[in-house]
């Protein structure tokens, strides 16, 4: 027995390893100096430029014709991080996950670097020098024919500069036609407002005025173009101190971010939303509806909240639903209070893609210029756009990537990244945003403005044109302000009066209400992917690896089934099923998700790209496609949903790369998990909270470890679960700030993802209407950190200010610390994930990295540092000025971008700091407090506000 107990020897294990480590190092040292570096100063240093520091510039990026206003950090002239523009009235410093990930595209080796001409089945690299004179000659011929046979296919854009060029094009080439295509457009919304008001109008929600918010398949906080502002206003209206907190009702077929935040949620098949709204309108008009407690309670509340309610409808719903919502909002007196109308661009006079495809087939199109977009991939499948392109003698595609469309066109022209471009666009409220380049095109790439300028022989260059359109007649001083702010102050669209027209909406035929879970009567809903959107971001590895907010799926998509539907059809999670719509078939993976409407199957668009690049799939080079291409089932008459779906299980299994295990299926496990979840991610009803504001706190235990004496600054964090909507913006901010690597699908399946901030998502309650809880988890910087106690080489140490420091150089990769971390936030580099940048010719990829953060090598543990580089920078800056950093001066990357301001960082030792006040709030609790490890992060309970009549009913 005694032999098992080791006597403490003279040489401790740590000392032994030190000695061993030292002798190994010496063995390799050859006694000579390392490679001498060179310093290359400027010939003339630009004014205000300090080498080795960052500068920030305001610009914007456009998606689906709506701008996101950005503030981009540039280090020594290279953009390294995208943040939201704090001055912008809507975005206010926040940026969506997708906007932030755009920085990766700039340095993507697949981002097109040159022109390619296809000729007789082979493709040849070309240069602008070859292209320009030839193209000018060709356009002169087209012009002589007054533009006959010339078609320009563009994505919808809010750019004034582009519009001015379009006018010029119409003068120069009167017979040319302008075509617009976007797979996820606002067509239904516009048609709805035309039905209701006779003209195209845009809804500007004013959530700060809303007490009852009803979202009908409307993802106001996720995919809505003003989601950041909506989410911020929503979070503000959810604070417990609000006298009249907002209640959110959501009716939708598949869980969205908005549905996850709902107080009352009803899962309804997409096609049943119209009957639901008709019944609601009838009930509001005084009729009796026997459609259940949900509708009854909702109607009562809407009537009680006249003028303080808002019914929002999502873009997938048909025009009739939009029109009905306009009418109900008007009749309840909400219009003008909780929502305003502004002018919406009306695409009247623009040719539709279907018409273009028919012209192409008929051989009537001689020159087709495609400005951005990817119609070969995302056009309705029955148009067979790829085949139609074969009939066009000259098709030019200006695009960021040499994608499916580029490969089917005769010319691929490389398009400049937004950060390399001059341009303009408008945000959802109409504010005119400026797009200015932070860097010259790294490769000879051009913008749509430049290409179109060449086509219509524009007199002004892109920058001059943008200035003339954005700020006509502005003085240099005013222009300078616009360049600084990134938008034109006070340029938001004015609200317009909307006079309701009289219209009637017939109730849909009963067939559409079929409730049986029978093949042929199922519905398939096409939804844009929360990360990849319509597929344009498919080659962005950050977005591919960021888990979907709800399904927690990375690298791919799957058809989402409700448990009931899956059981009825014999479909199992993680298997392949065949979806059949008429004659079209598609084999996709299936997953079962709570909160999905029975009989409704949702499939995300944007996956299954065959020519995205080395990340998203490239058939030509045998790079596997990622996910399944829903566009193959999507036709013009069913862009949003198809009603006659058949599902056939194939029996083949398919591994989904999820970062969270699928829900426990047996009832015992489920019960146990729910108990745990109640402890970890706490939720209470507002009524309970008001009765008894205090939350359960663990009493202080004796600790066996010596607690570090806290003197001076104590860094800490507070995360308000009541505000978090799970949008993933923080995850992307962290990825960009901290050089967090991407590991790929295989490694995610093995549980080796590297994200420093993980958003846990829990479902509780009934399968059909679950309560969704989000909990962002970073390193908690415990005061007696379990990881520190087990490290044999002191590679993780406690700093005097309470940071749990990770010393990469000391780490030998035992992974003991990760084993001992109760929060599982430590990440291990199983491979050298940054290997690609060490290769010859990877200079451009290297430019992406934040030089303030070490790039970690294989065999090293890493984790959240509370953005120690930002802490140090702020501390040094403040101390240089002879003061201490003020509260709020240090902002972590995740905190900076959070649209709902759920994350607060600061000094706990200063009782007046925001974080200290939040720590003291009665909602605050520490995770796993029973372990007595003193985490420096406090979570604030989520408070839900269910309808009293439905609380029992729904759980």
């Amino acid at each position, binding site marked *: 027995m005694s032999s098992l107990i080791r006597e403490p020897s003279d040489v401790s294990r740590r000392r032994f390893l030190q000695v061993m480590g030292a*002798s190994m*190092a*010496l*063995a390799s*040292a*050859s*006694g*000579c*100096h*390392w490679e*001498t*570096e*060179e*310093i*290359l*100063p*400027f*010939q*003339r*240093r630009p004014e205000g430029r*300090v*080498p*080795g*520091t960052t500068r920030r510039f305001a610009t914007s990026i456009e998606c689906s014709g709506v701008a996101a206003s950005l503030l981009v950090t540039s280090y020594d002239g290279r953009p390294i991080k995208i943040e939201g523009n704090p001055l912008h009235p809507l975005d206010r410093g926040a940026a969506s996950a997708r906007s932030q990930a755009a920085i990766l595209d700039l340095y993507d080796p697949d981002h097109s670097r040159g022109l390619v001409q296809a000729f007789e089945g082979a493709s040849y690299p070309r240069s602008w020098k070859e292209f320009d004179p030839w193209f000018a000659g060709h356009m002169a011929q087209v012009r002589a024919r007054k533009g006959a046979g010339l078609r320009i296919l563009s994505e919808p854009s809010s750019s004034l500069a582009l519009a001015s060029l379009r006018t010029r094009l119409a003068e120069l080439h009167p017979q040319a036609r302008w075509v617009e295509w976007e797979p996820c457009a606002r067509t239904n919304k516009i048609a709805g407002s035309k039905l209701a008001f006779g003209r195209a109008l845009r809804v500007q929600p004013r959530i700060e005025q809303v007490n009852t918010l009803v979202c009908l398949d409307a993802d106001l906080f996720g995919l809505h173009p003003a989601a950041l502002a909506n989410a911020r206003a929503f979070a503000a209206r959810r604070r417990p101190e609000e006298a009249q907190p907002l209640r959110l009702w959501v009716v939708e077929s598949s869980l969205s971010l908005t549905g996850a935040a709902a107080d009352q949620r009803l899962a309804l098949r997409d096609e049943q939303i119209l009957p639901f709204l008709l019944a609601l309108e009838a009930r509001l008009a005084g009729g009796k509806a026997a459609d259940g407690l949900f509708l009854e309670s909702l109607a009562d509340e809407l009537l009680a909240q006249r003028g303080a309610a808002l019914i929002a409808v999502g873009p997938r719903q048909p025009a009739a639903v939009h029109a009905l919502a306009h009418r109900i909002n008007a009749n309840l007196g909400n219009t003008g209070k909780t929502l305003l109308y502004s002018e919406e661009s009306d695409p009247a006079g623009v040719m539709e893609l279907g018409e273009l495809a028919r012209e192409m087939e008929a051989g009537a199109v001689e020159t087709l210029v495609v400005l951005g977009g990817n119609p070969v991939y995302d056009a309705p499948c029955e148009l067979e756009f790829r085949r139609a392109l074969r009939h066009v003698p000259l098709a030019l595609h200006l695009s960021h990537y040499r994608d499916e469309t580029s490969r089917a066109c005769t010319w691929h022209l490389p398009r400049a990244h937004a950060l390399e471009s001059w341009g303009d666009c408008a945000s959802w409220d109409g504010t005119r945003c400026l797009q200015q380049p932070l860097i010259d095109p790294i490769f000879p790439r051009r913008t749509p403005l430049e290409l179109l300028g060449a086509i219509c022989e524009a007199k002004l260059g892109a920058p001059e044109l943008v200035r003339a359109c954005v700020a006509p007649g502005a003085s240099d001083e005013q222009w300078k302000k616009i360049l600084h702010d990134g938008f034109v102050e006070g340029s938001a669209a004015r609200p317009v009066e909307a006079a309701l027209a009289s219209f009637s909406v017939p109730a849909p035929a009963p067939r559409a209400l079929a409730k049986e879970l029978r093949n042929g009567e199922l519905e398939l809903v096409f939804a844009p992917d929360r990360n990849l959107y319509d597929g344009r971001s498919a080659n962005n590895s950050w977005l591919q690896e960021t888990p979907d907010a709800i399904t927690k799926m990375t690298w791919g998509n799957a058809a989402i089934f409700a448990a009931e539907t899956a059981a009825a059809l014999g479909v199992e999670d993680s298997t392949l099923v065949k979806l059949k719509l008429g004659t079209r078939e598609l084999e996709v993976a299936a997953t079962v998700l709570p909160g999905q409407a029975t009989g409704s199957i949702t499939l995300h668009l944007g996956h299954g790209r065959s020519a995205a690049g080395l990340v998203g799939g490239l058939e030509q080079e045998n790079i596997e496609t990622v996910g399944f291409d829903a566009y193959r089932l999507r036709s013009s008459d069913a862009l949003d949903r198809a009603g006659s779906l058949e599902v056939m299980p194939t029996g083949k299994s398919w591994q989904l790369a999820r970062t969270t295990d699928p829900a426990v299926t047996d009832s015992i496990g489920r019960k146990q998990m729910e108990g745990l979840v109640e402890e970890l991610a706490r939720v209470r009803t507002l009524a309970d909270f008001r009765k008894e504001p205090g939350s359960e706190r663990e009493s202080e235990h004796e600790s066996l470890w010596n607690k570090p004496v806290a003197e001076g600054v104590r860094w800490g964090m507070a995360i308000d679960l009541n505000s978090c909507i799970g949008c993933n913006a923080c995850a992307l901010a962290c990825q960009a700030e901290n050089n967090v690597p991407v590991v790929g699908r295989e490694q995610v399946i093995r549980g080796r993802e590297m994200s420093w901030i993980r958003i846990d998502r829990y479902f509780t309650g009934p399968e059909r209407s679950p309560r969704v809880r989000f909990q962002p988890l970073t390193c908690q910087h415990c005061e007696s950190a379990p990881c520190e106690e087990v490290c044999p080489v002191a590679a993780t*140490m406690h*700093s*005097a*200010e309470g*940071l749990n*420091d990770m*010393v*990469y*150089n000391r780490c030998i990769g035992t992974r003991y610390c990760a084993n001992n971390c109760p929060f599982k936030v430590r990440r291990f580099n199983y491979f050298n994930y940054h290997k690609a940048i060490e290769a010859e010719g990877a200079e451009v990829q290297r430019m992406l990295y934040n030089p*303030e*953060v*070490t790039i970690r090598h294989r065999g090293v543990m890493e984790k959240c*540092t509370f953005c*120690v*580089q930002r802490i*140090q920078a702020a501390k*040094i800056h403040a*101390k*240089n000025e*002879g003061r201490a950093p003020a509260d709020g001066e240090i902002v972590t990357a995740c905190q900076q971008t959070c649209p709902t301001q759920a994350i607060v960082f600061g000094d706990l030792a200063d009782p007046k700091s925001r974080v200290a006040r939040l720590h003291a709030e009665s909602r605050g609790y520490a995770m796993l407090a029973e372990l007595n490890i003193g985490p420096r992060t406090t979570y604030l309970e989520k408070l839900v506000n269910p309808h009293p009549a439905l609380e029992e009913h729904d759980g």
Partner: protein
Amino acid sequence: MNVFPRWMNALRVLAGASVLAAGVYVVALFAYGGSPKTINAGFSPEQPVPFSHALHAGELGLDCRYCHTTVEIAARAAIPPTETCMNCHLRIRTQSELLKPVFDSWASGEPVHWKRVHDLPDYVYFDHSAHVTRGVGCVTCHGRIDTMERVRQEQPLSMGWCLDCHRNPAPNLRPPEFATAMDWQPERPAAEVGAEIMQQRHLKPSTDCSTCHR
């Protein structure tokens, strides 16, 4: 039966001793050869232009900050752009062969390729402003630059050397207004002056890992 004669016993001891000595020698050799003092201190690469700090900073008495303009506000002291050289050399020694790389850079816009003398590993985040504004003189780490014809690394710049000062900064502190003065000498014992400065300015240099490594 003895195969080996008796005197071989002595040889055995001798052999053992020499193996031991060889081991000690090898370890000592590597310890010496691999130490930053040996490897780094004294490093003095030849520069494309034989710029003499002894002339400019010493004889002519230019302040360090005339060229290294960002030393008080940024992490890097910054090597001056060609323009700084040309402030004077547009008029002085305009025909000098030695200055050709500078004139070439001025004419072409291409940078002069200077060799880096003080090179910390990439995982070390040193900040000049944090030291200069607290009262660590240039001379403390860089030595008497004003006497160097060709810049030479004076100190080992090793982690142990950094920590020596972070643990006991007093002897190396001076009033920050004299930070760039090469020949400043304390009137009283250095440690005493330094201790006073530490108290006045609330200096408490950190030895946490994350102070320099991120």
